[in-house]
């Protein structure tokens, strides 16, 4: 009962409000086209008919939610996942480069943070570059990464994953520097009185103390990894992936297809973030965090 009152009702209410707004905007934005059609045919159109028509256009300015839902249903369930017209196929392509890039990015971020925390020189010299790296617009640098890596015969999954890595290492590095420095002075002094080695201080104190920071930054990292993978699919000539689907949709004015791909990407991001949340909960339980 509590679950329904505390979760289902508020979340459902917001969802309904969004859907209502979406329908309203679909009608408003698609109506001019219907009026033009009627004017061209020298007829007038009744309001009821107008509203019905705005929700059933083939290339609407803003497709109605049920059109997008129908497109997703068709491309997910009706078409074989191996077909290039299947959203599952494209989603899978994007997901694999997202996960590879996210994995590499997280690893790189952690390693950078460890280096920075243990060396004053690296702290001073690396951090500015890490921050600068994120001020470069990814849309500008993505094609260059793909082209450069292509030139040295690295093609396929890895170049796209590199773009995800480029974006996702940053929150992990920044979060983990903070996390690895989070132990209290007393906890560090204690290790000093035990004459603990640097490695022992790391594994028994710094690493466990940084876990909350790690999972928070991994949530951000996985979401931008997905963005990176999609951006990485644009300059590859729209071969495959959610990004290719978006690009093809915009070439041919297939707005329903674009929106279906967008919604699919959003759902994927939500699932990935919740999975990390789930892992964080399990780790927290093991580490005895107060429920």
């Amino acid at each position, binding site marked *: 009962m509590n679950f329904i009152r505390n979760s289902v009702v508020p979340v459902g209410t917001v969802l309904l409000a969004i859907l209502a707004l979406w329908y309203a905007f679909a009608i408003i934005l698609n109506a001019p086209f219907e009026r033009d059609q009627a004017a061209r045919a020298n007829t007038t159109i009744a309001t009821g008919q107008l509203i019905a028509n705005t929700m059933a256009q083939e290339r609407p300015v803003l497709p109605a939610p049920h059109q997008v839902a129908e497109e997703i249903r068709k491309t997910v369930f009706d078409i074989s996942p191996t077909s290039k017209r299947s959203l599952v196929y494209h989603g899978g392509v994007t997901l694999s480069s997202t996960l590879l890039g996210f994995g590499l990015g997280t690893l790189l971020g952690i390693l950078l943070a460890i280096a920075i925390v243990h060396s004053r020189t690296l702290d001073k010299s690396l951090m500015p570059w890490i921050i600068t790296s994120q001020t470069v617009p990814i849309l500008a640098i993505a094609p260059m990464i793909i082209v450069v890596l292509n030139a040295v015969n690295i093609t396929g999954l890895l170049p796209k994953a590199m773009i995800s890595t480029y974006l996702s290492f940053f929150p992990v590095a920044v979060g983990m520097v903070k996390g690895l420095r989070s132990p209290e002075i007393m906890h560090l002094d*204690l290790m000093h*009185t*035990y004459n603990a080695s640097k490695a022992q201080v790391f594994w028994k104190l710094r690493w466990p103390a940084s*876990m909350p920071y790690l999972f928070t930054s991994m949530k951000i990292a996985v979401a931008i990894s997905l963005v990176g993978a999609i951006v990485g699919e644009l300059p590859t000539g729209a071969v495959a992936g959610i990004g290719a689907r978006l690009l093809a949709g915009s070439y041919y004015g297939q707005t329903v297809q674009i929106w279906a791909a967008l919604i699919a990407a959003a759902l994927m991001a939500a699932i990935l973030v919740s999975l990390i949340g789930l892992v964080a909960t399990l780790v927290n339980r093991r580490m*005895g*965090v107060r429920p």
Partner: protein
Amino acid sequence: MTVVALRPKAQSMPNATPKNVIDVKDLSLVFQTNDGPVNALSNINLAVNGGEFVSFIGPSGCGKTTLLRVIADLEQPTSGTISVNGMTPSEARQNRAYGYVFQAAALYPWRTIGGNISLPLEVMGVPKAERASRIAKNLELVNLAGFEKKFPWQLSGGMQQRASIARALSFDPDMLLMDEPFGALDEIVRDHLNEELLKLWAKTQKTVIFVTHSIPEAVFLSTKIVVMSPRPGRIHEIIDCNLGTERTLDIRETPEFLEIAHRVREGLRHGHSYDE
């Protein structure tokens, strides 16, 4: 990794005098701060015998915690000498001579009580079976048997501090260094833990250095009270204090107790500790 010798016996050290566990001579420590140098410790001379219970008492800023940290090799003196078991504090620390208890329990929140007591043993490479028996033994010692699997937040403040004492004792250090360990606890819990600590001291025969703000606490626990005064941090007076081995809280109403407490208070007054 080979098993580390946990406790170098003072007697086996060639340079160690059998009596003085801690020997401080003309020790000074100046902190360089943005507001100029601060004389945290000035001309400290102190000798502590093995098995003594020594309290440092004085107002904030008198350097009592700093002196304890110098003994534990957590701060470096600017001048003068200090030896612990005939060694430098750094060597003594590397020989794992110190069990340190902070004002806060400073338990690692992601480790259970047993896990926290196991921490120094893991660092020192004690084998697993030995760790288990030491955890049980030390929990018994501080009356926390049965709490091994609990996490720190599930225990009261007093129990957490007892667990932290068990952790400090787990690797059988030469001495117990305690920095206002009961300062954050209420008076009822504090009285109780004072009695417990006294029993523990009698049982383990360890040298204890105890930093405190509280005159009754110092008089009740100590064999020697070091009265310190601020600006610059220095020792004003060392008062011998031995109220017998079988002490209970009732002793606080005896004339002997009140006499020593009075002397400590006078010492603090003459050290300008009550000046504004």
